[in-house]
């Protein structure tokens, strides 16, 4: 009986594993957290450009403006077993917004650094460990 079962196990495993994948894609390089933290209030917009490069987005706020620097981490895990497909996607990002005043000087800054928290998982798994 054992000899009869054994050949089926690798076949079944091959069938189940053949439709398994994980992938990761990113948008923009990781943000230089220290360089951002070192920017003092009152820094000129041109100096910010020299240090951080071009922002991902610029929003005009009347005479003021806000610049977004963003790095996105997108992880996907999928599993297909014959007729069933399971797919999970988790996207998290690092973001820094720099707010400039009417004179083009850095007035406010805020950052969130969550991109490393993106996870590969299956749809039923808890992503936040609660």
């Amino acid at each position, binding site marked *: 009986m054992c000899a*009869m079962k054994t050949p089926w196990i690798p076949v079944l495993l091959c069938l189940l594993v053949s439709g398994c994948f994980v992938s990761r894609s990113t948008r923009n390089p990781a943000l230089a957290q220290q360089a951002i933290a070192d920017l003092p209030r009152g820094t000129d917009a041109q100096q910010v450009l020299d240090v951080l490069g071009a922002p991902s987005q610029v929003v005009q*706020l009347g005479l003021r403006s806000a610049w977004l620097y963003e790095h996105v981490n997108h992880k996907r895990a999928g599993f297909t077993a014959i007729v069933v497909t399971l*797919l999970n996607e988790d996207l998290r990002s690092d973001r820094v917004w720099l707010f400039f005043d009417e004179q083009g000087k850095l007035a406010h800054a*805020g950052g969130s650094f969550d991109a490393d928290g993106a996870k590969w998982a299956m749809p039923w798994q808890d992503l936040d460990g609660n």
Partner: protein
Amino acid sequence: MGTERGLLSRACGLLLAALLASGCLSLRWRRSTTDRPPESERLAALVPGVSDLDACLHELGAPNEVWELPGGGTALAWAWSKSRSLGASVSIPLAEHANASFDYDRADATREAYVAFFDRSLVLRELRRGRLADLRAATSPSLPEPLLEPDAEQ
């Protein structure tokens, strides 16, 4: 022994049926998560009329979106989405040139957000929760009226 053999042959039959059906039947379970909502303790620390832009950035971090409000104010949105969808599709060839298919999908995707509204002095005036697209559409400056077409007869 006989029962075991019966079970095994039933399992093989089921597997064979599933393999044969794989070309015309598919079941999908998909979950997609983008960012996370701000923590409620941090939201509770923000007081309209008192907290300013720096306090909001300190408590909630960088927003996902920023836009200008009519009247010179500023809106910041912290957004997230969590969607789950279950789907099934069946496709059956009925005749040589005809193919019947059925597709069913149930998804509940929404991009929710907390939006902080600031006045011209960058003092928090209101914190609202809702669908980001709705809140943004309701509070973005309206586009200027298109210029009237000059009268063709004149």
